[in-house]
């Protein structure tokens, strides 16, 4: 175990003090416990018991539990990748290419090397050895096709902002200064960074959507048609925490790498493969992540370069990227989306065509499902989906919150709004008329789908019935008022994950898993699940995450971590219960002597019979009698391999905008997001997730855009002063409604996950509201006031 600063352990797990915060909040919430209209939605723990035994027993699942790591975060006790200290740490700074394509002819580091305090300057010419095959550079979530980017590998320049040298120095300031002295001579090559220039060269990629019927012919014959193209610009994640890596040299060629990542084990396998290391010799730790949103799913170059530096110096090295350099990482690809919808006069759909052209790099084929969402939402006898990729001289695009869906559903739901206008049918009504109870791609029903309720409850919460249909018909003084709505849909995936539980006889349990908590609340929900499953107070649970040496976990993404890790913990807790029961049975005159495993549960610190609460043995007694002071179990979750159901989360988003009629200034004054996402583990962290998604949706609709100058192939707003995201003034009234969605099929706890659903549909709801307010349809995001001035 590495312990350079002497106190990393509290930062990794949850110290008792932090857990107490959770308890205080819980106590305060006690009386305000949500009431459940439908008993099936009661936050019971399905894996555990059917009939409640002890009324006094605390059930944490489903309650608005405060973050167990909240205190560590606000006090600065929580440490991030760039904050781990060690003696003899060297600092580094990256030199980036200023051209988007070409070759490095000469790289002169002599001036940099002359600066006092500079230890070395690494380039492709003098760096330590790295793997030479594409396979070795493929991380767990790399696109199937292509050659992953290799930093400092050779003289090839593939995008502007590419790292081409690493300056290593005694101080960060020295490294940064010396980096400015590295002189590079390039051989420039022709390049392209404009999607519109390259759209005709785009090539088709295979997607899981299953076209059916003849959408072209049905469209031509349809009574009412809508056809349009929509555009989503390149967007960058801009997490608050800068990408950083501290590679600690442990001697003997061993390294501990503190990295900002959404998957420590992915980074660990990748670095071992790139640097040809045994898995015991390189460990990756990332206890806290200051936002990542998909940018940290694949290992980023800072981890490779920090390790390169450490290997070159045989010394610990830190690399923290600058904000500008973060624009040289992945991004949400710019995408052109074309929709053609044909309907009967009654609003039922005959034809859906959704075609997307998204950006990828010259060297990898990254694509996500932009198209095909219509097949999940709307019945149509004919459907056609085509996804194309256009190659540009930019870094490979990557996942960003609800990849594919955020842009694809924006386009689909804008088009549905336009169709509703053409049909003169209320937008909610149109969606209900087309409502599909089946996933038409796979031809299967859903494990659960409460989208109708989302529409209904969202509309009620918003007051939709007071909407006057005509554009420009609602006002508030000098402002035009617009009400728009859209549907959101996302996947409810689950992945293999394992958890280890160590229970000690004093009734404390340590739960560990390699999962990352990227700010979503994984520490907290796992503490809740463990507490309920082990029948212990939450303050007796400590959670350890974000360490590659812990039990296996997938990368934290795709909204699958809550379901996956919770079930790993629940499954392992069952093993613990099995062992406790065996110990309890072995006691002389045990009240549980003839109890069967399935008839028992853990509650109030005891093994209890479900039939008769008086038949119980305390965990402590059972372990003491058996002379066992710790029970350690590790299990992997397992989910039924069920291809007969589709698994999705849904939402209905309603937005109000007010637009100054003369000046075009847009304010999003209200948003209601009614979300159905299975069992909500923690109504507080879940609320934050959806609210954050809505805020991002506001940004997507009105603010976000990475601006390129295609003459230079460079990003011209690579900083967060000029790359706009919403600020407080842009975020007004957001209401989150969770629609009850019992799901007994998807998994034992009925969990779906909701990290991404919050953003899907928001941009469309706002764009539709802007149309309703102004009568102007802006089909290229973001909707800035100058676009409202355009004549069309």
């Amino acid at each position, binding site marked *: 175990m590495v312990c350079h600063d002497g106190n990393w352990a509290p930062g990794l797990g949850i110290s008792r003090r932090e857990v107490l915060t959770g308890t205080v909040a819980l106590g305060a919430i006690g009386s305000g416990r949500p009431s459940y209209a439908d008993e099936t939605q009661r936050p019971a723990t399905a894996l555990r018991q059917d009939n409640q035994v002890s009324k006094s027993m605390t059930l944490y699942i489903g309650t608005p539990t405060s973050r167990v790591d909240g205190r560590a975060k606000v006090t600065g006790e929580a440490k991030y990748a760039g904050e781990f200290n060690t003696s003899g740490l060297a600092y580094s700074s990256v030199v980036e290419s*200023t051209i988007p394509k070409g070759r490095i002819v000469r790289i002169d580091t002599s001036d940099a090397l002359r600066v006092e305090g500079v230890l070395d300057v690494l380039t492709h010419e003098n760096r330590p050895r790295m793997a030479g095959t594409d396979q070795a550079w493929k991380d767990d979530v790399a696109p199937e096709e292509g050659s992953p980017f290799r930093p400092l590998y050779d003289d090839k320049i593939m995008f*502007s902002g590419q790292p081409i040298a690493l300056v290593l120095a005694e101080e960060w*300031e*020295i490294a*940064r*200064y010396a980096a*400015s002295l590295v002189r590079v001579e390039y051989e420039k090559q022709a390049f392209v960074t404009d999607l519109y220039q390259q759209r005709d060269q785009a090539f088709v990629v295979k997607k899981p959507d299953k076209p059916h019927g003849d959408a072209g012919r049905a469209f031509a014959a349809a009574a009412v048609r809508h056809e349009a193209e929509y555009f989503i610009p390149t967007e960058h994640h801009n997490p608050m925490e800068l990408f950083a890596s501290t590679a600690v040299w442990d001697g003997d060629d061993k390294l501990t790498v503190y990295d900002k990542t959404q998957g420590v084990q992915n980074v660990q396998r990748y670095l071992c493969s790139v640097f040809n290391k045994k898995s015991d010799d390189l460990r990756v730790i990332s206890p806290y992540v200051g936002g990542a949103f998909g940018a940290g799913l694949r290992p980023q170059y800072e981890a490779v370069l920090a390790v390169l530096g450490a290997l070159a110096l045989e010394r610990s090295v830190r690399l923290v990227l*600058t904000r*500008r350099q973060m624009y040289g990482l992945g991004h949400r690809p710019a995408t052109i989306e074309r929709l053609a919808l044909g309907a009967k006069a009654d609003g039922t759909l005959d034809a859906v065509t959704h075609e997307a052209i998204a950006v990828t790099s010259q060297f990898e084929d990254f694509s996500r499902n932009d198209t095909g969402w219509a097949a999940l939402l709307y019945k149509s006898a004919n459907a056609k989906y085509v996804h194309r990729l256009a190659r540009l001289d930019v870094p490979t695009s990557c996942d960003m919150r609800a990849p594919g869906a955020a842009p694809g559903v924006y386009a689909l739901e804008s088009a549905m709004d336009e169709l509703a206008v053409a049909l003169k049918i209320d937008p909610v009504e149109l969606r209900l008329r087309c409502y599909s109870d089946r996933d038409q791609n796979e031809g299967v029903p859903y494990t659960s789908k409460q989208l109708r309720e989302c529409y209904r409850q969202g509309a009620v919460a918003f007051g939709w019935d007071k909407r006057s249909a005509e554009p420009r018909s609602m006002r508030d003084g*000098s*402002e035009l008022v617009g009400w728009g709505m859209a549907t959101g849909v996302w996947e409810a995936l689950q992945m293999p994950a394992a958890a280890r539980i160590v229970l000690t006889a004093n009734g404390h349990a340590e739960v560990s898993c390699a999962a990352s908590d990227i700010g979503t609340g994984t520490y907290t929900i796992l503490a809740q699940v463990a507490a309920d499953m082990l029948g212990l107070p939450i303050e007796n649970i400590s959670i350890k995450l974000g360490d590659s040496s812990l039990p296996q976990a997938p990368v934290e993404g795709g909204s699958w971590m809550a379901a996956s890790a919770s079930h790993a913990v629940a499954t392992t807790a069952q093993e613990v219960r099995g062992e406790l029961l065996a110990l309890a049975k072995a006691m002389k005159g045990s009240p549980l002597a003839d109890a069967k495993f399935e008839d028992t549960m853990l509650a109030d610190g005891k093994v209890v019979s479900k039939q008769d609460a008086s038949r119980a043995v305390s965990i402590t007694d059972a372990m003491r009698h058996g002379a066992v002071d710790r029970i350690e179990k590790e299990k992997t979750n397992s989910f039924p391999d069920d291809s007969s159901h589709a698994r999705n989360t849904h939402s209905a988003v309603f937005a109000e905008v*007010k637009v*100054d009629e*003369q*000046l*075009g*200034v847009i*304010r999003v004054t209200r948003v209601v997001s009614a979300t159905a996402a299975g069992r909500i583990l923690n109504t507080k962290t879940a609320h934050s997730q959806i609210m954050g998604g809505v805020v991002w949706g506001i940004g997507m609709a*009105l*603010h976000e855009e990475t*601006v390129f*100058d295609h*003459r*230079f192939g*460079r990003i*011209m*707003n690579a*900083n967060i*002063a*000029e790359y*706009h995201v*919403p*600020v*407080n*003034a*842009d975020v007004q009234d957001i209401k989150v409604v969770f629609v009850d969605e019992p799901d007994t099929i998807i998994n034992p706890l009925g969990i779906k996950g909701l990290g991404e659903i919050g953003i899907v549909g928001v941009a469309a709801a706002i764009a539709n509201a802007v149309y309703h307010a102004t009568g102007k349809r802006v089909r290229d995001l973001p909707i*800035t*006031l*100058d676009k409202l*001035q355009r004549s069309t």
Partner: protein
Amino acid sequence: MINFQYARANDVADAVRMIATDPTAKFIAGGTNLIDLMKEDVERPSGLIDISRLPLKGVEETSDGGVRIGALVPNSDLAWHPLIEQRYPLLRNAILAGASQQLRNMASTGGNLLQRTRCAYFYDIATPCNKREPGSGCSAIGGINRIHAILGTSESCIATHPSDMCVALAALDAKVHVTGPAGERVLAFTDFHRLPDSSPQTDTNLHPNELITAVELPAKGFPANYSYLKIRDRLSYAFALVSIAAAMELEGGTIGEARLALGGVAHKPWRDSAAESALRGQPANQTTFEQAADILLRDARGYEHNTFKIDLARRGIVRTLTQAAQATPQSQSDKKIR
């Protein structure tokens, strides 16, 4: 970012002496602009002369009924100073429209005047820019120029001055007090900033070896009829696409003295005496305001992405003059435009 020397000046004379001995050094006040530019290698001063502790932090009444503002008064202190709140609410509102609370806490009065353009090419040393590197060319002409100027541009540069505070100071006929090796001088605010002409590298008529010591406001503050309207890409914390400072005296429904200044449209806060003359003596109504707007914008010229600013400015001028005339100044906290 380069390595640099750091020294602290103890008094005004000290500061002026220090800059005279090292002309490649720069004063640093709040550092909110200079440090950013140094991080991007746009500014590479050999040394920083810290003036933040100079005794230039007073806001005092002058003998002729005006107010003298020390060059180191933080923007927030100035906005919330009772003299400014009561007598120059236009200035207060313009300051509060700018940046964020944190930045306004750090930013100084003198530094605000000397903040540099937000033109993206100026900030990116991998691209040509006449302002940063004279003679290298202007990338914004023919490039991304959505935020750029529509008035007073030149073939060399179409950048804007990004300040909000300065728009109000221009409208209020402020004066800038400076001290250099040759002693003190006073510049009219409208003469302080320059147009780009063929030397866009020079933003102002301040000499490189001069220190701003104070900004002085004349007695006339237009506390009754004024408004500052800032139109931007999000509701707060964004630079102006167009901003308008309007102030007037009204007798009955007739305009007496009138001031109109625009931000975000030129290399300096834009004032036009002809537009103001068109307001004076006229009824305070829509027609008058439209005429003034047309006069002010008569020579406006758009580029590929910023043509929208011309119409936006016209509408904004009319709106702001209306707000001023009706004594319903734009609130800087409620983002609804009045």
